[in-house]
């Protein structure tokens, strides 16, 4: 027996040793998590060996960890053994047959956001025979990218077609040992995006998951990896302003960005997962690890996020500024209404010389929402002349909501400088009355004031995304004033 088949043998035997067989033909794994489930996922996805090994290492490490409790969010204990970690993409024929079968409330919201009919069908998961616009657009789009050597596909496809790139870069920015949820994601992620911009290429268009074939059903453990080679640049859009429903309550995504010398990555997110009902029941738990590594000199990574959905948001898109003169940016709007909780912010770690970072965070709390900004600005001892500017503003609507700010600054280099500004304000009755007196209703006045408050962040978004984000804030704020 050859060495290789021996390994396979022991591999198979080990599966049995757990007294549990998973049929590869099966569409879903049973609930729960163990090494067999991880092998099953990897096998289903026909992944290369390095991937399953990496997943297993992550799983073994994850088992030594406990759910972090430092964030200012409250939720009942999660039973990780009751979660189904793999189920095959839904077949056509399942789900609603037409928009008539879809929750009218959801349709009403789509209407308000001005989402085209075809897109409404896609979002609501309606089974349609016609080829989606987005798919056909997606195809021509991919050809155009391929001409320039840009790889933009699902991470599953990347594992098939470019395994060497995935192996080289996965886990280099967010290692599987990073934190509880990142470890879990590393063990069980089912899909996500992969994007590779070759040396010197400026990506000619905004890349968006929306235009990616197979974008649907990326599942609750999404993994995204973007690599920008020397001198390249890319702008990436994640998410969608339309409310997204998902039967999975727990979401734990990982996003890794890597920028080499003179490269730039701009990453924009609009997150609008189901926030739960008026009483705070249901809603997505969104525990995300996002990090960008400015490895090269003069590189730049910029995060912009508009977070309006999810019952719980736990998310700190960060930048590690290793390359000299590299730049990190974080622009955030986080809105909590009803009983939503958000603990979000960023970490800017300055390692290289003359590194610069900017943090602009706008928290909005309405209803019973609780909103925390948590940020760390860290200067390592070699970060000569590094600079940070942070601005953290909180806006309160009503008297039941809460805003909290936890800024941390660590400095080990005397030549660095940091500026921190923070404000907390309430939408004034004066402001609302002033708008009323000009004929503008209270709800419209609140939307206008909130959008004005968020302007600095919206300016960072690509144009049409910014317009949608404004509408989204309006819809999310409905009912926040009496």
């Amino acid at each position: 027996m050859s060495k290789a088949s021996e390994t396979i043998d022991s591999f198979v035997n080990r599966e049995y040793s757990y007294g549990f067989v998973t049929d590869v033909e099966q569409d879903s794994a049973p609930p729960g998590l163990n090494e067999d489930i991880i092998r099953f996922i990897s096998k289903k996805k026909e992944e290369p060996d390095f991937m399953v090994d990496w997943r297993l290492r992550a799983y073994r490490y994850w088992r030594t960890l406990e759910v972090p409790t430092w964030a200012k969010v409250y939720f009942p204990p999660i039973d990780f053994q009751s979660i189904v970690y793999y189920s095959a993409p839904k077949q056509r024929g399942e789900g609603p047959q037409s928009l008539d079968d879809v929750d009218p409330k959801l349709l009403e919201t789509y209407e308000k956001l001005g989402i085209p009919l075809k897109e409404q069908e896609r979002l609501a998961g309606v089974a349609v025979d016609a080829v989606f616009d987005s798919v056909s657009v997606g195809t021509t789009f991919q050809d155009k990218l391929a001409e320039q050597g840009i790889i933009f596909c699902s991470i599953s496809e990347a594992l098939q077609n470019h395994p060497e790139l995935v192996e080289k870069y996965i886990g280099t920015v967010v290692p599987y040992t990073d934190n509880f949820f990142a470890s879990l994601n590393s063990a069980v992620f089912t899909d996500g995006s992969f994007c590779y911009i070759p040396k010197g290429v400026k990506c000619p268009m905004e890349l968006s998951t929306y235009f990616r074939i197979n974008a649907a059903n990326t599942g609750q453990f999404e993994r995204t990896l973007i690599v920008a080679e020397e001198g390249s640049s890319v702008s990436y859009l994640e998410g969608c302003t339309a409310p997204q429903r998902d039967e999975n309550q727990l979401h734990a995504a990982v996003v890794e960005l890597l920028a080499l010398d003179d490269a730039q990555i701009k990453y924009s997110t609009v997150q609008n997962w189901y926030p739960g009902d008026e009483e705070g029941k249901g809603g997505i738990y969104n525990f995300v690890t996002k990090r960008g590594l400015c490895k090269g000199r003069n590189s730049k990574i910029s995060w912009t996020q508009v977070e309006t959905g999810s019952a719980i948001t736990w998310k700190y898109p960060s930048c590690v500024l290793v390359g000299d003169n590299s730049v990190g940016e974080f622009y955030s709007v986080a809105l909590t209404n009803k009983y939503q909780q958000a603990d979000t912010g960023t970490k800017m770690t300055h390692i290289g010389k003359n590194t610069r970072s900017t943090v602009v965070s706008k928290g909005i709390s309405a209803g019973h929402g609780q909103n925390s900004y948590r940020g760390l600005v860290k200067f390592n001892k070699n970060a000569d002349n590094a600079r940070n500017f942070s601005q953290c503003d909180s806006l309160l609507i009503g008297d039941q909501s809460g805003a909290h700010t936890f800024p941390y600054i660590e400095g080990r280099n005397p030549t660095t400088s940091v500026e921190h500004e923070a404000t907390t304000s309430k939408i004034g009755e004066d402001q609302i009355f002033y708008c009323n007196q000009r004929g503008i209703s209270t709800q419209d006045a609140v939307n206008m004031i909130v959008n004005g408050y968020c302007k600095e962040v919206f300016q960072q978004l690509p144009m049409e995304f910014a317009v949608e984000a404004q509408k989204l804030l309006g819809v999310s704020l409905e009912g926040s004033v009496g």
Partner: protein
Amino acid sequence: MLEIKDLKAGVEGTSILEGVNLSVKAGEVHAIMGPNGSGKSTLAQILAGRDGYEVTGGSATFEGKDLLELEPDERAKEGLFLAFQYPVEIPGVNSSYFLKAALNEVRKHRGEPEMDAVEFLQFVKEKMKLLDLREDFLKRPVNEGFSGGEKKRNEIFQMAVLQPKLAILDETDSGLDIDALKVVSSGVNRLKSQDNAQLIITHYQRLLNYIVPDYVHVLYQGQIIRSGGKDLALELEEKGYDWINEERSQPA
């Protein structure tokens, strides 16, 4: 147009207006004068519908409608405009966006078509000349970083755009230097027509040199204690408010 009858109101149990009577018809300019604390601004705020005041008696009708029953934005849409004594800053919201939203609300209410951005811009440019405003004004956030004079000019500019039936000017002259006062007054005068009315609330006679009222009323301790023509303002300026009060307390 506006009929106020025996209006009594206060705030947190303290009575401020103690039975105000006032009748304003289309084409008229009325001035309400009075010393500090007489209830002038309270009257303006109550007519505009500000929260926090309690109406304890009397009535106010506007174009036949019970004004006190309407929400503040409904009053505005009906054509009641208040030029604020202290205009409010709305950071990040540019003036053009704000004013277009307001104008279209009012137009919708009147059954007129909404204006698109191009029509709006043409429309407001005319009005800006009236108040001697620079073009970049529209791009600036509402009242943010404006000087006192700019804020007041902005109020009258908004009035020019919204074309209300009744404009209440609450101490529009306060904080204005003489040049700004002239610009603001000439704006107000040019907006006057046979179909609209103006209610000028002021502490000093100075403004009334530029905006000449048809009627002058003196509000004192929550009541209009004297009404007359424009000469009354001059008399007040000369003799002070105590004069009326003393005159009142003496038997006729």
